Structures are given as C-alpha cells and as structure tokens.
C-alpha cells in the first residue's frame, strides 16, 4: 500500500508543470463541487425547517391575533394574549427569525383589515416589541433592512417614530430615501411633502404613484404647495403636482396650468392637458387649439382631442367633424370620433355624406358607433 502511494507521489512530482497545474485544478474543482453539493443540500434543509417553523408560528399565533383584533379586549386579556404570543416566538436560537415571521403576519393583517382592527393591531405591534425591533433595524441595518423598517413603521402608522424617519429623507441610498419620503408623508401629512419644493433628483413614477396614493387620504384639503410644484424645474415634481391637482381638485392654480400646456417636456404637456380636461377648465380651449397647431406629437394631439370632448362646445364639434374627414393619421381620426361620441353627438357621426369620408374613416366611425366595443 505504502509503496503505491510513494510511487504515485514521485510520479506526480516528476510531472511537468503544466500537468501539475491542470491536475491540481481538476482535483480542486471536483472537491469544490462536492463541497458545494453538501452546502446546497444543507441549505435546502435549513430553508425547509425555516418554512416549517414559519408555518407553525403562523398556525399558533393566528387564532390569538384574531382574538385580539375582533374582540373587545380589556387590559388583562390583552396582556394575557401578549404572553401567549411571546411564548410562541420565544426560542433560544431563533427568536429574531421568529419575530420576523410574526412581523409579516401582523403586517398582513394590517394591510387587509381596517377600522378598529388598525388600532388593535398597532397596539399589538407596540406591545409585542416589533416596533422596537424595527427601530433597531432602522439604526443598524443595511440599506434594505432600513428601508423595510421604515416601510413597516409607516404601514403600522407609528407616528411617534416620525422624527427618527425624517433623518433619512435625504439618505444617500435612493431606496431608503424614497421610503423615508413616503413614510414622512404618510405619518406627517401634507406638511411633510415640502421636500418636493426643492427636490433636484427626478422622482420615479413608482414613487409618484405611492405619494399620490397617500395624498388621496388628505381628501380635498387645500394644498398650498401645488403652485410651487407646478413651477418647479424638476419635471417629475411638476407631473406630480399636476396629478395632485387633478385627483384632489386643486382649482386654485389654474393659471399656472395654462402655462404648462406649452411646456417643452412632452410628459408634462400631456399631463397638463389631461389635468385641464379633468378639472373642466374650459377657458383653456383657445390655448389648446394653439398647442394642437404647434405640436408634432401625435400623443399630445390625441390628448387635446380628448379634452375637447369634455371641455368643448359646438365649435369643437365642428373641429372634430373636420378632423375625422380630413386627418390622415388613424389614431387622431379615431380619437376625434370617440370624442364626438363622448359628447353625445352621434348625430354628427352618422351625418357624413357618401364619399366624404375615406374608407378608413368610415370603418372608424362604424367602430365608434358600435357600443359593444
């Protein structure tokens, strides 16, 4: 036996360098593969056991949480429930992970149940220690941990943490910044939106949608900053301002809106026209004609035609009628016909004489008149 090994050893030693290198690499790789297989399988086992634990906790904690949310609990019963939950999540090794699972459970309930369920879940969130956990994560975690913590705290409406969160509204990492801005608005109300006044970086549509969603909760309060936003050099802020104008009926900035119809950025322009339409700002019709002439963008023209339906009168009916007959661009003919239908002027659509419309025009009118589409 020993001779075999010694002979092999000297054989290997005597090999040329290139053999040695390749042989070494081969053995190393195969070993690496074997080690990784073991790791993968172990990882799978761990994940499986985590999932089992998750299921167990959910199963045990669910009824208790339901009791808390749906019952008129007094102090003692509540404390009792807290103790029960604590017993479920407590564990020498896995407490943190268990708390994470519990966190998701509470958040899930909070997202689906409102009204009085909110207050009870929030009470639970505080008492069970999840709030503290989030605050710790906020201080110490990586960017995604911070972002999640902020998101959790704002979802659970932990107003008292607003000050901590505000520290992050201009954090270098964009994800954290966005979460902080959103949380600031959610917990701090419309005053917290003042960061938009001098925002240099563009705000993504995603963020706009979220902030808008929060803003809808302010209902129809007067938002003074809308004017500043409409005048901003940051186009995304302007677009957001327009969205606020439209969804929250902020009529007081109509003058500014008029100017925005001529904005160089197409997105802003389009949004402005849309807003004017939604706010029934019929005084801007003259400007709309002008813009229609000036612009080369089909999208903008479409929006204007659409706006005529809501803002216009008989003059616009005539214009639309002309457009259907003369315009070459399919989409514009379509939009014009649709607008006439919206205005309730089907009589105009069927009034075309023979040969007045192109074949395309005729089929479009037929399409519009078909109510099933």
């Amino acid at each position, binding site marked *: 036996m020993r001779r075999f090994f010694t002979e092999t050893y000297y054989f290997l030693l005597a090999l040329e360098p290139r053999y040695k290198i390749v042989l070494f690499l081969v053995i190393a790789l195969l070993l690496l593969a074997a080690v990784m297989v073991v790791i993968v399988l172990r990882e799978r086992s761990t994940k499986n056991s985590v999932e089992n634990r998750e299921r167990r906790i959910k199963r045990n904690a*669910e*009824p208790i949480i*339901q009791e808390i*949310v*749906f*019952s008129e609990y007094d102090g003692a019963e509540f404390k009792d429930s807290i103790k029960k939950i604590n017993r479920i999540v407590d564990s020498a090794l896995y407490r943190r992970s268990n708390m994470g699972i519990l966190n998701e459970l509470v958040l*899930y*309930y*909070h*997202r*689906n*149940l*409102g*009204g*009085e*369920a*909110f207050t009870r879940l929030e009470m639970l969130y505080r008492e069970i220690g999840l709030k503290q956990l989030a605050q710790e994560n906020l201080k110490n975690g990586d960017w995604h941990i911070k972002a999640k913590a902020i998101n959790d705290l704002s979802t659970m409406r932990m107003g008292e943490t607003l000050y901590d969160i505000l520290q992050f509204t201009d954090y270098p990492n964009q994800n954290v910044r966005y979460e902080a801005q959103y949380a600031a608005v959610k917990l701090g109300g419309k005053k917290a939106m003042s960061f938009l006044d001098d925002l240099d970086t563009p705000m993504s549509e995603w963020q706009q949608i979220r902030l808008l969603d929060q803003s809808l909760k302010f209902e129809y309060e007067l938002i003074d900053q809308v004017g500043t936003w409409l005048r901003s050099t940051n186009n995304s802020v302007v677009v957001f301002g327009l969205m606020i104008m439209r969804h929250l009926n902020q009529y007081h900035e109509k003058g500014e809106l008029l100017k925005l119809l001529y904005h160089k950025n197409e997105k802003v322009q389009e949004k402005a026209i849309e807003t004017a339409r939604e706010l029934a700002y019929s005084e801007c019709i003259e400007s709309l004609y002008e813009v229609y002439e000036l612009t080369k963008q089909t999208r903008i023209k479409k929006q204007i035609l659409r706006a005529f339906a809501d803002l216009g009168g008989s003059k616009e009916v005539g214009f639309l009628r002309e457009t259907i007959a003369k315009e070459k661009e399919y989409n514009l003919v379509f939009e014009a016909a649709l607008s006439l239908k919206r205005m309730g002027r089907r009589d105009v659509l069927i009034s075309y004489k023979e040969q007045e419309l192109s074949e395309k025009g005729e089929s479009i009118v037929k399409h519009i008149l078909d109510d099933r589409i």
Partner: protein
Amino acid sequence: MSEKAKILIVDDEPLIRDALAFKLTKDGYDVDTAEDGEKAIQKIESEEYQIIISDIMMPFISGFELVKILKERGTDAPVLMLTSLNSETAVLKAFDLGADDFMTKPFSPNELSVRIKKLLKNAKK
C-alpha cells in the same frame, strides 16, 4: 327561534378566509369557506346560504364571474364583494353584474358586520 344565518366566504387567501370566518362565527353566523369560484359554486349548489362574501381577484373564476353565474342561476342570496380593487370601473362592474354590496380592503370588520346585517334584513323582506 331564529336559525343562524349561513354565510359563504370565497377568497383565495387562507388568512383572510380564516379571519373572516372567525369574526363572523363570533358574530353568531354559521360560516363556510371556499377557496375559489369553482368550489364556491359547488357549495352553493349543495347548500343554501343567506349571504355570500366574495373576493374579486381569484384564479380561474374571478369574483365578477362568480356573481354573474350566481345571479343567472337565480341565487337570491345577496353577494357582497370584498376586494383590494378600488377603481370606479371595478365598483361599477360589480354592481352591473349583480353584486349587492361592495367593500374595499383594508376593510373595517365592524363595518362589514353592519353591512351584513343590513343585507340580511333586506333579504328577509
């Protein structure tokens, strides 16, 4: 003596089903659950329910379809839609198809109870 009213809850998310079942059982109703539209129809065929609460976004047979099918079959149990969708189009569509009430998530459990009571009262008339 009054019999307990029977309620069917249709939602593809188990936690919601459980939560609603818990709450409504507490309120004194007899609660049954179904995890999708197909199972709901099966249950409705075999048992009588006084109210049906349904989600909209479910795989295969959506809440909208369920409502339409139920109304076509002549089920007179009122249907309450309970969903995350909150657009005007969704609301209109639901009522158009025959739904009797519409609530968006997150919903208040107490409000739900009140609406159920009202629907049951109206149905009895």
